[in-house]
């Protein structure tokens, strides 16, 4: 009798959770996309004077982002690389951040707000802090680059 009920509904579907359910619960597709195919993972040479590096976050909070930017002579971010220890939102936020800033001028990039990131990724309220950390990473990387430039211009 139980069998007949199950057969009517299609035994496979009724007995086991559908794969689609994995996606319905949790993040938006965009987050999954960035998580499974992250853009710009890696490292740049931190000794390079045109590269600004940042390491923000805390392992004890479960979120650490390393972001590096390579800036051309005319102040355009020509490359960015990231590495993240964190949940799916954190990885997606930092991946999207690198996507956003490549090709932008340094001034434009420093104006990026965390809400730009979180609205694109449609992050749930409990994950907004991941986008905040990504914004911090961008700011810190740019600040590091600027510091390197000023040190260069001062030294003989």
């Amino acid at each position, binding site marked *: *009798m*139980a*069998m*007949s009920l*199950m*057969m009517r509904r299609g*035994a*496979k579907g009724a*007995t*086991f*959770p*559908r*794969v689609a359910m*994995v996606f319905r619960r*949790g993040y938006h597709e965009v987050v*999954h996309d960035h*998580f499974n195919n*992250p853009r710009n*993972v890696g*490292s740049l040479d931190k000794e390079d004077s045109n590269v600004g590096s*940042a*390491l*923000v976050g805390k*392992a*004890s*909070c*479960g*979120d*650490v*982002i*390393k972001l590096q930017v390579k800036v051309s002579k005319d102040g355009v971010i020509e490359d960015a690389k990231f*590495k*993240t*220890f*964190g*949940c*799916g939102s*954190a*990885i997606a936020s930092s991946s999207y951040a690198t996507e956003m800033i490549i090709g932008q001028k340094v001034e434009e990039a420093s104006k990026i707000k965390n809400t730009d990131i979180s609205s694109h990724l449609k992050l749930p309220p*409990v994950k907004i*802090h991941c986008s905040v950390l990504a914004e911090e*990473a961008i700011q*810190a*990387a740019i*600040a*590091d680059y600027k510091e390197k430039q000023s040190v260069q211009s001062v030294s003989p």
Partner: protein
Amino acid sequence: MALGWRSCQQLARPRVWASGSLRHFAGSLWNEYEDRAGPSYLDMQATTPVDPRVLDAMLPYYHGRFGNPHSRSHSYGWDAEEAIEKAREQIARLINADAKEIFFTSGATESNNMAIKGVAEFYEGSGKKHIVTTQTEHKCVLASCRRLEVDKGWSVTYLPVDKYGLVNLQELEDAIRDDTALVSVMHINNEIGTMQPVEEIGRICAKKQVFFHTDAAQSVGKVPVDVKHVGAALMSISAHKMYGPKGVGALYVRRKPRVRLRPVIDGGGQERGMRSGTLATPPIVGFGAAAEVCMQEMDNDTRHVQKLYKRMHDKITEELPQITLNGSPSQRWPGNVNLSFACVEGESLLMSLAKTTAVSSGSACTSASLEPSYVLRAIGVSEDLAHTSLRFGIGRFTTEAEVDNTVNDVVREVRRLREMSPLWELELEALKTGGQKQAVTWS
């Protein structure tokens, strides 16, 4: 297709293979779909699938034999009552108790509440105002104790545990005061699988003449639990942790020497006044059948789980460096494998595995707060590792193929996530420079 009760029984009845291993049910709804679309289930601590033999036993009571067991006046009621008493016997036999000592509840949470609040309320005003428990108990025990502290002014000692999750017996004995009414220590921890020395604790409690309650939800049906050897005054049991249905559990309440409780749920006086409410016959019948099946299968299950645990743990630690097993390596239930993967965040690993494997994480990102699991914190897992753990649950129905596939997926995903992790990069650099971790300059 109208299948009657008898043909239904035929369908669900397992046909045992010559090997005698009752895992391979021909025609069972579980193994039939080996290439099923859903992920492998490796979260046995959260819940277990209902054994086909248990479902077999339950179904008639949803169909033709649906009487209310408290209906005294007709055969529908008598029939249901008989089934419930049989289930009570089966459960009592599993833990070497008397049937009169088993009270059915809606689950281990209710049993724990009943034990703690029931004892406290009975002793209200008698001078007993203290409870001893541990920091790694299940939330329902901690919350019940908290409730007593806040509402009734009871004092509670939350004993710390060592790095394996084991409670210190001397500390426990010292913590028992003249006004202690109850000691509550869980048998097997649901997060890390550590098994407490309940027999020793029972001896200490008997010596000090204090009631000993143990939350045995994760242990009954898996390891032999004898209430007389343990010396427990109260024991909580959960059906859905032992291949039984959800929504039913039991509380063992010792009769000799007598344990007195005030009931938490009042009503028609069912369960000798201890827990009112119409007994749910089908889940209880299932619970009893699950207990009997566990008694038959215990040796086989233990061997099976031990073998798969070794396979999983050995393979993962062989392939991946910097893996930590949380909990005691020797005093544990092998079906609980809580591993910390250094430099890989738990939720991201869960997300990578979600399509193929169902597991659970001890990390914060999966809970609403940013705090890591209190159990991991209690065993002193370092801040860096607190967010990196995953819990794999192996059980009666876990196959070797599932374990192998899971191990392959885990190894692949951990490698991928480590490639993406700045902490792993720092770790590798530290190893290259001879183990001296360079000071991290945080922006």
